[in-house]
């Protein structure tokens, strides 16, 4: 990754041009040809530095409900619990963390009730009953920009 790659990355993490020729627009801003921008972005994706390029949506604005859940899962149930939870498409992020509450996942669904029902089902299917449901009541910041 060289300084031109860094400039491109910093340019396209937010406000990707909504333009028929977005890479030409970026190229004009950075004094590069459209082809060069396309080639570099392709390479950054192939190298795994860019995970994806697309739209990111807030669940609430689309009418969905979102929450953070934490579960206290015994060692011998971690695989079963992970498999059970990850099978829900609304579970988008799931991390093992160092704490008594050792499995943390985000859960998005059409309503709060659906999430509560799903958590009950998960508890029944896995025997893990200590699951916290922690919906956000205030959002102060959400951003995923890293100056590189």
């Amino acid at each position, binding site marked *: 990754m060289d300084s031109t790659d860094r400039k491109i990355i910093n340019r396209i993490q937010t*406000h990707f041009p909504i333009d028929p020729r977005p890479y030409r627009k970026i190229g004009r801003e950075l004094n590069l040809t459209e082809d060069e921008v396309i080639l570099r972005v392709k390479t950054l994706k192939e190298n795994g530095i860019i995970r994806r390029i697309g739209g990111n949506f807030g669940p609430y604005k689309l009418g969905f409900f979102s929450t953070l859940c934490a579960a206290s899962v015994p060692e011998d149930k971690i695989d079963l619990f992970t498999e059970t939870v990850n099978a829900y498409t609304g579970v988008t992020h799931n991390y093992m963390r160092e704490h008594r509450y050792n499995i943390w996942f985000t859960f998005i669904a059409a309503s709060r009730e659906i999430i509560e029902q799903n958590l009950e089902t998960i508890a029944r299917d896995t025997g893990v009953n200590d699951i916290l449901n922690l919906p956000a009541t205030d959002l102060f*910041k959400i951003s995923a920009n890293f100056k*590189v």
Partner: protein
Amino acid sequence: MAPKDLGLDNKTIKYIIKPMLTDIEKKVVASLQGNIPVCQRPFLVLAKGIGISEEKYLDIVARLNEKGIIRRFGATLKHQKSGFKANAMVAWKVDDARAKAVGEIMASFQEVTHCYRRDPAPTWPYNLYTMVHGADEATCHAIAEKIAKAAEVDKDDYTLLFSRKELKKTSMQYFD
């Protein structure tokens, strides 16, 4: 059904803006939530995919963007490969009366990417959450200390939860 009928509290209702997306807007949302193609005219490719013109597609994207329905449009990096090797979720216990002001202080730190308030649970006393990213775990601890000092939070009133394993990481697929 009104949010109140769903049993949601007022603080939660505040975040629910009932969407009035048309079917075609939903299709545009669905087409944008994957990986858009890297080529000269990516929006033409996406527009063809849902059977509308490039011009109409771009109009809809611009409108969704203006309305804030697209929260962020652009590249998402793989953190591990871009120099931020450690991430910790820091859970904070702050007096309710101070929570809003403290949340805003925490959000102002560049190292903080996410900052939320959540109601505590009987077995879990924390009410503010920040995601911090750093080169290593010691850096994350140092960042948390710096935030604690600025926000006047005692060191016993916060905890760092380091991720030990990524078990799933995807984007939500809406209207699929």
